[in-house]
């Protein structure tokens, strides 16, 4: 092969390699425009999750671009026809220290910066609002392949005869700390509400508390985020967030309907 041909081949393959980081970054730049980015967030803790996501994404982005460029450069530099023979080395102690210490520091940083968000979402459940872990607004039963919400009777009793049970449509008040109890009738499911940035597995045999405070009335998607069987793809629901007073009258209406004559 002539040396010109070899150079061209190197150049083409290097450019192909270079296309990986470029396209990778490009998809992220364009993601929002193409509708691939997150939906807006409408829960009180949503922004803190987004912040964590951004922090980690930037860390990964810098690392990704750096390593990719290095890879491309190495490829180009060391694919010369007259390449020098490889030599054995025992490594570079300083370099290894540096590239161990930096990721370790970054991981420690991530570990600390997420603690607040984690405890808010998963540990410190609301205690001052109308709903608490002991007295949740509702129970949500996941089963193959639907979601059922159960509202307790007027005494807060989930075993009472006057429990309200609805498939698919989950109605909650806005601007209220809503606590719910998540259960599964059969296999693992996962309660995922993208606009609340909330995801929690439902585990058979367990009653798992979940909470959120919706900041904007509207209808939002609920999807199952744990492959639970052949019908998993259609295990969807809707969260209807109503203004507080409307929610109260909605619930009263449901209690009334329980004794409807038709």
């Amino acid at each position, binding site marked *: 092969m002539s040396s010109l041909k070899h150079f061209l081949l190197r150049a083409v393959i290097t450019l192909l390699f270079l296309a990986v980081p470029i396209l990778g970054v490009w998809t992220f730049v364009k993601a929002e425009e193409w509708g691939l980015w997150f939906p807006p967030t409408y829960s009180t803790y949503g922004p803190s999750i987004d912040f964590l996501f951004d922090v980690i994404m930037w860390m990964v982005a810098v690392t990704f671009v750096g390593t990719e460029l290095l890879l491309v450069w190495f490829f180009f530099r060391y694919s010369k026809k007259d390449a020098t023979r490889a030599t054995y080395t025992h490594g570079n102690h300083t370099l290894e220290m540096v590239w161990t210490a930096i990721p370790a520091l970054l991981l420690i940083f991530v570990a600390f910066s997420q603690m607040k968000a984690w405890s808010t979402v998963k540990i410190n459940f609301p205690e001052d609002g109308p709903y608490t872990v002991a007295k949740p607004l509702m129970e949500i039963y996941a089963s193959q392949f639907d979601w059922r919400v159960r509202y307790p009777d007027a005494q807060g009793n989930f*075993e009472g*005869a006057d429990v309200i049970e609805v*498939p*698919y449509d989950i109605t909650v008040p806005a601007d209220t700390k809503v606590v719910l109890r998540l259960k599964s009738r059969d296999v693992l499911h996962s309660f995922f509400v993208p606009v609340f940035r909330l995801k929690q597995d439902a585990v058979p045999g367990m009653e798992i508390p979940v909470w959120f405070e919706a900041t904007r009335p509207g209808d939002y998607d609920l999807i199952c985020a744990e492959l639970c069987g052949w019908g998993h793809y259609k295990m969807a629901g809707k969260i209807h967030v109503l203004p507080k007073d409307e929610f109260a009258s909605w619930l009263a209406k449901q209690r009334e309907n329980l004794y409807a*004559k*038709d």
Partner: protein
Amino acid sequence: MIVRRHRSAALLAAVALTLTLSCKFEPFTPELHYSLNGPVVEKNPDLQGDPGAQAQLAGVLEMLVGTPKDPRFLALKDWDFDPNYWGEDLVKKDENALAALIASNRAAYREQIASIEAGDFENVFQPRFADDLWRWWLALKAEKAGDAAALKEEGVKLFSEYYPSLSNSAAFYRNQCFHCHGTEGGGNGSTSRFLNPRPRDYRPGKFKFTALKGKSRPRHEDVYRVLTEGVYTTAMPSFRRFTDAQLHGLVDYVRLLAIRGETEILLASFYTSDEGLSLESVQENYGDVVAKWRGASKQVIAAEDIPAVTPERLAHGRTLFMTPGEKGGANCVSCHGTSGRGDGASAFEVDPLTKETRRVKDEWGNEISVRDLTRGVFRFGRRPIDLYRRIYAGINGTPMPEHIGMTVTEDGKQHPMTESDIWDLAFFVRTLSVHEATVAAAPSHH
């Protein structure tokens, strides 16, 4: 050397070509014809061995209800309604149902309607699962080409009052229901073998969950409710994720399949080689089946008033429930058991063939569990009125019997059970799932 290189290039090209060709996605389309009901045909020796006769039966049925691709009721001369617009007429007559339909269409076709209202007709894109709506829209657009104001007005009306045609609902049924309920609605789709209870076979016209007396065919509302609520803890899911219009359309198509199936059963049983299928008998049987569906709404179990729950009523319900039939009680205990767990003696029987004890069978021939009433799971509504109706009329096709008018003996006197007795039973059943402790502590007459 050169030849070899060319050969490998050709090989590579061939592989690439095969891959691209095989990746061309062909959606699976089920066979688009209705098959005859095998077991029913087998029962009539005149039909069974005679392909000509079977073809005649299939032809007659096709004349009556069309094909899966083009389902279409034959409207008899003396009918004052067109069964092809059965559901649409009902919905558009009912103010609330119509308002709900429009609201749901407006939400589903929000973007199309916005484009039409903005006069941006070229930007209206094709909605999913609504080929007929799309065809109607294109036709309207062509017809009103020069008249933007009229196109706007009628376009918005078209989308917001959309009600699917039977053929569109049939296609939607094949998309959503066919794998369980089968092409003919025989409850024998490919998934059905793995399910218990089995998906409903619509063909005998027996439906479990209605608000009706006796063995009536369901009303439009009854089937609609099955679709929105699902049958909890069975494989039959809730279909709330679809629009009102789509669900009404499915109800229409289920009705068509059920009418086809029942007519088939009747015609197959009357067929004789000597006479074939006479036009009168076809008309008469088809007319009778349709009449049963038309008359359903006269059979509603209405509740004048829901009585207040009192300890006396609960105690009375308990006594009726717990007292076996031979002692003059309502006999629920024989199937549902003393704890209500569905483990009474009559929940099981000895199989005549294998001599083994197994669960009782329903009328479709599948083993069925008597409901465990302590779990608070009711398959078709947990409101007092729902349970009242279940107990009043029984559950069609299952051993759960009708109870209204059943003879019971109380205080040494025989009397038929009244509405009030049924309410007492319904109230008592509701307490069974509250807490076993409460049940055990409930006062008893004995």
